[in-house]
């Protein structure tokens, strides 16, 4: 039992931290976010060169073969630097689905494209009515020779406009909310019948609504009707990674707020000397440390394939949501008027934290899932 990083993990951590310190200032990040798809292709290429795009993929697919701890390490540093590049959409979600679905020709080819930085991807899993229910799928797929024809509308597809390829969840059998009968399909975003309406999200990343109008040539990924298990596995891995990112953000926000309170003077003294504010900053610190403990718990049980892995993950996601609200809210409040300006980085960190809370279900939603595991009810 230990909570130390391996030498390799420390190297990854230092490498990301150094990149952010040297090349990813808040000003630079602001410029990147203002680019066409909300990120900087050159930065993405740097990620490829540094090997970061290969971390979660097995070595059989040309990857680094990283563990949950490895992903945690990189994501926590990304959080501290507020990295806007679409690592989650392309590497973790799109790449994760591919890597989990087998090691065929498609996987080999696409994952090597991800690793070398030439391919952008995304996962279209949301629909207008689905809210947080991954099994609520109305988009349909019909066999068309060896391939499939898709019809439907997907919303809030992260990285949807930049993506060359998308994996789309579609119904091949069953009723609208059934877990069985969902299948996954690979499509080209340039294919006929695909229309894309892109928009920025508040965290600077971009998403898109994707309309599929008789889109042919869709390739089945994984087994027919059995896509839901694949979705769950990859969503869980990604959720864990997002929580690590959130941990980095929370630490950054707490540190920034504490430092600000030491310099900002009001009523003739630094506001950090006011006991009421001190106690509230302690509450921020405590919330962050509790989240860190659950993060360690969840990555350890993920890597150990523990039977409690899902329960630990859900607990973590709930706490990320709750602690994030506390820390984000206090960070703005204690920065006073400055906290309200978009020039300062604080608000941007808070918005990313809010987005992470929402992604794959907010705190209340995941707590209800936790209850089912915890009380063994329904």
């Amino acid at each position, binding site marked *: 039992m230990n909570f130390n990083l391996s030498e390799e993990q420390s190297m990854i951590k230092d490498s990301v931290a150094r990149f952010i310190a040297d090349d990813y200032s808040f000003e630079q990040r602001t410029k990147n976010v203002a680019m066409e798809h909300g990120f900087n292709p050159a930065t993405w290429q740097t990620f490829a060169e540094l090997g970061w795009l290969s971390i979660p993929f097995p070595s059989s697919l040309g990857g680094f073969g990283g563990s949950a701890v490895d992903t945690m390490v990189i994501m926590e540093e990304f959080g501290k630097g507020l990295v806007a590049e679409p690592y989650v959409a392309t590497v973790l979600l799109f790449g994760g689905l591919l890597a989990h679905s087998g090691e065929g020709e498609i996987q080999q080819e696409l994952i090597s494209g991800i690793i070398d930085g030439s391919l952008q991807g995304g996962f279209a899993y*949301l629909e*207008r*009515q689905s*809210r*947080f*229910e991954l099994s*609520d799928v109305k988009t349909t797929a019909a066999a068309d020779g060896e391939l499939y024809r898709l019809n439907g*509308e997907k*919303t*809030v597809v992260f990285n949807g406009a930049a993506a060359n390829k998308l994996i789309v969840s579609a119904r091949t059998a069953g009723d*609208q*909310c059934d877990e069985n009968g969902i299948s996954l399909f690979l499509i080209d975003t340039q294919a006929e019948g695909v229309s894309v*309406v892109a*928009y*920025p*999200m*508040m*965290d600077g990343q971009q*998403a898109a*609504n994707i309309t599929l109008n008789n889109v042919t040539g869709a390739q089945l990924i994984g087994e027919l009707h059995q896509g839901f298990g694949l979705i769950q596995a990859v969503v869980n891995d990604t959720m864990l990674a997002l929580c690590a990112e959130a941990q980095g953000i929370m630490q950054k926000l707490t540190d920034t707020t504490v430092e600000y309170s030491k310099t900002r*003077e*009001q*009523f*003739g003294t630094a506001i950090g000397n*006011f006991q*009421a*504010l001190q106690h509230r900053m302690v509450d921020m610190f405590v919330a962050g440390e509790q989240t860190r403990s659950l993060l360690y718990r969840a990555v350890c049980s993920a890597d150990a394939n523990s039977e409690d892995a899902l329960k630990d993950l859900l607990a973590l996601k709930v706490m990320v949501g709750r602690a994030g*609200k506390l820390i984000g*809210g206090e960070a*703005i*409040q204690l920065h*006073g*008027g400055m*906290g*309200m*300006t*978009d*020039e300062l980085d604080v*608000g941007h960190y*808070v*918005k990313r934290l*809010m*987005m992470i809370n*929402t*992604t794959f279900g*907010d705190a*209340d*939603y995941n*707590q*209800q899932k936790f209850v089912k595991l915890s009380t063994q009810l329904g």
Partner: protein
Amino acid sequence: MDIQFSEADLAFRDQVREFFKEHFSDELAARVANPKTFRDAIVEWQKILAKKGWIAPNWPVEHGGTGWSIAQEYFYERERAAAGVPDVVPFGLKMVSQVIIAFGNDEQKQRFLPRIYHSDDWWCQGYSEPGAGSDLAALKTRAVRDGDDYIVNGAKIWTTYAQYADWIFCLVRTGTEGKKQSGISFLLIDMKTPGITVNKIESIDNNHTLNEVVFDNVRVPVANRIGEENKGWTYAKVLLAHERTAIAEVARSGRFLSELKAIANTEVSGGKRLIEDTMIQQRLAEIEIELMALEYTELRVLSGFAEGKGPGPESSLLKLKGTEIQQAIQQLRMDLAGYYSGVLQGELSNSELGHEFGDRARREYMYGRASTIYGGSNEVQKNITAKVVLGL
């Protein structure tokens, strides 16, 4: 102790309801809600209210006030909120006008009040400074006497709608002796005076509401000073208590809560309406219960006013609870919007985006962070309450 209303009060309520229904059209509402058309639309609406004579209820009757009873005031606000009618922009009609009425001279009253009444001038408020936020009295903008003028140098910050403003009312430092609260004067400054620069501050809701106003050797006639030199803090303080009460926005929160219930009745998750989700139910109930209490806290404050008492202990409480409730409503609207709470809708229509309230949820949530900061931060309110009410 009772809350019975007279027949006349109830008739007044119906009259107000009817008036809003008739004059505040959906088309106008849409223009007010859109940041790009807000300025012209709100002025258009305020002129309608001025014509009706309801634009300045709290002014003395001789200046255009309505002389309403507490019950009438209560119903007016309740009906206004229920109809989704925005409050007037407060800086002229509710703030500087009060100071002019109470402490201005006759010439100032005649010069400024009618133009405020008819929304001919847009006013903004120059209180906060980069170094003086919660510690307002630490302000440093200097006004130095030069013949019949003051020469003003310094900067004001977080100035709401300065980009639209014709006039700004400012607290400036005219003396440096004694306590920092003394040595402050209250000046009215024409925004077109040479030497004034308005710098946009983009706020976290991605809107342009806030500004920095920089004064570089700005000449202001001494005739534009309210009351005595160095006594400005006394005049401004009166406003602060009224501002606290106004920030509570009790009636508006009631309307927003109804909107949330309607949303929860429509949005689904896993095929079930969100209103059937116990956790959503409880969050709605918690907000509603606090709000039901605050409605009566507000009535207690109003009835105190009616008996000639100034804002008592309940007014800090109104600000504290009122803003907490607003933020709870904003948070819940975000949560109801789910993924859509993160969308910057921009020029997309609702049907293009496929969603109706996510963008608004985000804007209100983000801008709403300010409510616990401005008007005397909630921390300052607690300090005041501890000292003044609890005697600590």
